[in-house]
């Protein structure tokens, strides 16, 4: 038990994890601990009582989950996983050949399945950009740590691409070209545009031609060159303008950041340089506006950290920001 609890207001008390566990969820261990604490600090009783009363009013009815349900859902999930997990708990050395044969079989069937379905998947690793040319000469430049998937066989009739991450598209004229992401989809005919779809952020920039953007639950929006449209999960979508000719972007090695929390900026650095950055909660919430070059890691970090009055330390692939 922390000493400073004696100075806490009822609201602060009711926000302490162990207090919530004790008085809202009736956790015996914490309940005992808090009762002992209250007995030792009788002067704090009024605050504790008010905090308790406030908490009691936050109790809600919760859905009850049965063991049967847990088992049922888990077996459904297992049945739905097309490829069985390769790694088993323990591999007995004398039976290595059985394991090898099994892995080979799985690999072969996966290959067969890919051939039949004609599914093509292209992934750029962290720290790399990758250009992919589609059967119709349309071009996709993948930013670091991004993936596209499409069906090669059907591509001529149905230009349908699934994207996870960020990519720039240069699309030749022809049948509708559709980019699907988990956060929204884009439909175009012949144009160039950039899509960012990671975690909870979806953002589309139109460079040439026309781009139709669909966000689930919203009316489709038509973008013309210089228009940008997107949203962050939990907020409403908004449109902006940018200069499609003059504005540099990640393809030319310039990353421009407009009022973003530092945690997003650092996540981008992690993808671009394949490193891990450690920083505190409050640092991650600070907002950054500026730009940096994608050449040297230390120079990029310097451009971000210096205006924010932060210091960084590079230790191989580990970076600490303070």
């Amino acid at each position, binding site marked *: 038990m922390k000493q400073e609890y004696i100075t806490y207001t009822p*609201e602060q008390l009711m926000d302490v994890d162990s207090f919530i566990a004790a008085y809202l969820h009736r956790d015996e261990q914490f309940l005992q601990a808090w009762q002992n604490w209250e007995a030792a600090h009788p002067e704090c009783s009024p605050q504790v009582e008010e905090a308790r009363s406030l908490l*009691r009013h936050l109790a809600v009815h919760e859905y009850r989950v049965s063991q049967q349900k847990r088992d049922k859902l888990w077996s459904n999930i297992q049945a739905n*996983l097309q490829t069985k*997990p390769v790694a088993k708990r323990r591999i007995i050395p004398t039976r290595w050949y059985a394991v090898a044969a099994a892995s080979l079989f799985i690999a072969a069937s996966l290959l067969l399945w890919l051939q039949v379905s004609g599914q093509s998947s292209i992934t750029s690793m962290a720290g790399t950009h990758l250009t992919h040319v589609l059967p119709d000469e349309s071009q996709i430049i993948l930013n670091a740590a991004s993936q596209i998937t499409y069906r090669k066989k059907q591509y001529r009739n149905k230009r349908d691409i699934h994207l996870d991450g960020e990519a720039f598209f240069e699309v030749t004229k022809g049948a509708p070209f559709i980019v699907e992401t988990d956060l929204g989809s884009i439909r175009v005919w012949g144009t160039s545009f950039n899509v960012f779809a990671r975690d*909870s952020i979806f953002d589309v920039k139109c460079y040439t031609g026309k781009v139709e953007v669909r966000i689930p639950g919203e009316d489709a929006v038509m973008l013309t060159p210089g228009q940008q449209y997107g949203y962050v999960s939990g907020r409403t979508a908004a449109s902006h303008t940018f200069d499609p000719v003059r504005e540099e972007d990640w393809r030319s090695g310039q990353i421009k950041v407009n009022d973003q929390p530092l945690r997003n900026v650092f996540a981008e650095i992690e993808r671009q340089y394949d490193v891990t*950055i450690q920083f505190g909660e409050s640092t991650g919430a600070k907002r950054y506006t500026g730009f940096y070059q994608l050449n040297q890691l230390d120079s990029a970090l310097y451009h971000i950290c210096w205006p924010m009055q932060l210091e960084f330390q590079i230790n191989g692939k580990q970076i600490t920001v303070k």
Partner: protein
Amino acid sequence: MNVPHPLWLRFKQGDSDAFEQLYQENLDGLLRYGHHFTPQTELIEDVIQELFVDLWQRKANLGDTDSPRKYLCASLRHRLYRTLKKNAKTASEDEIPFDMSWDWEDAPSSEERYAQVESALEQLSHREKEAIYLRYHQGLSYEEIGDIMGVQYQSLRNQVHRAIQKLRTILTIVFMIFLTGMSTNMRPDTL
């Protein structure tokens, strides 16, 4: 992002035990969270199954997270929103209600007081309720809740603070009314 969670890293490397552990540790919380958005149990179960299947199949391409639970809650929320919006055709996200059926077994006693507190709590917006729920019932930190709901840490803290403050004021007032009510009722008897 802070240090990636070790269980998450094991899962991403294809450790099926780690995957099962992720499921076992989080399923109850996810099912309960889902039921505040919709009473349709089957729909929630479908979405959760799909979530775990996708998770395993796309594990190699997933980002790192310091809190698997935050990741899973955010993912469930997003998927539920998408499904519910498709079904309801509501225009903005604020219209997806977050239902709290309050359960005060040992809180306010009289019918009247119950109604007053309930109407007070119903003044909270759906998103305020959701933030309160995630903090007090799922035990998540403000930082995690901010990420799940796509809200800035500070504005989220203020939001919850305001909501609790509202509740506190209302409870004080209700309690005062209750006390004065009691004393006026009692006067004839005592005289």
